[in-house]
């Protein structure tokens, strides 16, 4: 159970960073960290004691395999994470060229 709690702590560290940091790149990093913890959480869910990687060898049947479903989900989620990070980086570089800074306190054109 300690691994799950540590995993959730990693998630909270990311959340803390995303809420308190005032730098665009730091916010992106915090979001990546939240992403990592979510992937790990899914991988932990699929693990089975004594299981082997889910690749069938017809020569040796009747093995215990770990759950392939969470792995498939994480595979999907990793690529989605790459997509969001790329988009966010594009916006960050664009904002940097407009304002000349990564500091979110100086990028406050809009109210509220």
């Amino acid at each position, binding site marked *: 159970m300690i691994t799950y709690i540590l995993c959730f702590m990693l998630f909270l560290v990311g959340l803390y960073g995303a809420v308190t940091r005032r730098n665009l790149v730091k916010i992106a990093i915090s979001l990546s960290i939240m992403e990592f913890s979510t992937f790990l959480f899914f991988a932990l869910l699929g693990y089975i004691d004594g299981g082997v990687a889910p690749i069938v060898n017809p020569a040796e049947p009747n093995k215990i395999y770990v759950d392939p479903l*969470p792995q498939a989900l994480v595979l*999907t989620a990793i690529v*989605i994470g790459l997509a969001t990070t790329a988009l*966010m980086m594009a916006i960050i570089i664009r*904002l940097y060229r407009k304002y000349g800074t990564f500091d979110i306190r100086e990028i*406050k*054109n809009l109210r509220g």
Partner: protein
Amino acid sequence: MNPLIPLFVITPLAATFLIMIIGRFIKEFNKYFTSLTLLILVIISFYCLFKTGGNVSVYKVGGWEPINRIPIGIYMVMDGFSTIIVCIINSIGFLSAFYSISYIKRYTAENYFYALFCLMIAGMNGVVLSGDLFNIFVFLEISVISAYSLVAFGVEKNELEASFKYQVLGSIASFLILFGIGFIYWKTRTLNIADIKEAFSSGYDKSYYLFVQILMLSGFGLKAAIIPFHAWLPDAHSSAPSPISAMLSGVLIKAVGIYVIIRLFFNMFIISEEMAILITTLGTISMLIGGILMIGQWDVKRLFAYSSICQIGYVVLSVGIGMILISRGLKHDVAVLSIAGGLFHLINHAAFKSLLFLNAGAIEYRTGTRDLKEIGGLARYMPVTSSTSFIASMSISGIPPFNGFFSKLIIIIAAIMAKFYLLAALTVIVSIITLASFLKFQRYAFYDKQEYPKEPKPKEVPFPMVFSMIVLSIVCLLLSLLVFPGFRDAVLTPAIDILMDPLKYSSQIIGL
């Protein structure tokens, strides 16, 4: 197996990539093709509404039959509730795309605009028609990622900043949702919504349920901009190009926010009183604070954006009242009435809020500003915009012959019958605040000054924009008909049935 269901996702996706390939070589292809595709989707969706609206139809992607009554593939589900939302998505999408034909001419890279627009429609259709939690997440990402890019379509300072804010809060919401899905998988070891309902019914662990429900509520609440999570909405909705604002405000926050919340809480979780009270409170706060923040706005689109928060509060509030009554197990007919009011208001809000944003776009198209202090006297120059926006303003403030009146009336009656007198009073007060704000908008935009202060004088907008606005204002009038029993039975009743009977959804899907 209704073979029409996957078409809602495949058609816009195929259209996207055809636009990206053919649109490079043939100019003008993109705009007409997008409108044509969406028109076809509108026809199919209304066909589904009137032909198969009442019953639940399931499409098993890949043809994987359940084993031991446990679904193993991804199921697409079309029932009364999702059919309504699909109709809204595609109709508003078609009108916005048609409106864009002239509006988006000012921008570069029209191909990307129409491609992203189709992707957004595909994503929302996918979310609404899905019966699988992780599938909902994937399609939600498609729609919100295209929304992030479309908000930043003008690539000026405001657009980029709004898009960044939206993206950060949206990503946090996505991870909360993903974590919640993992949590549900941990307990139930399945992802199909109907099957999760089955697995949940054995063994009730209160702390676990509360934690999962709060994770899901905050995730989808961020997407729906319910009040503590609303920070991104005014910026994003006011910075985006107007057709996109209409899509975001009229459809997106409903399809990926409110729809999923209602679906999960009614058809997947067991409704508990704590969550019902929490949801009602959030709805009330959204309604109140949205209304109060709306008063001081002078930017037309920001005013509409805050009013979106306020109106979404109405929907959440009335659904929450229904949930409280269900969880206490009393007054079943009042609960039905309350949820009916919420759904009715959801439909109405899609119509009049999209119309208002299209009007704001028309004003901006001709005058180049959104500030109410700088414009005035437009009624003489832009008669269509003026009259349609009058209809929309009266609808949203709840003046009798228009649709907004009936839905608000139903919500108030339901609140009184459920003995929530304070909520009923607040609803009336916020309605008056709305009326005041929209009268302000009408006066300063169209009637205040005799003459428009600047040269050149604006004239009426081009035909595609006029067409969309007129159609939407007619829809605003026609939707009032939904209070009459004949229309209500055809449209609203199947949706309410599927929500009210907790076992109907899951038993129909697994049993089929």
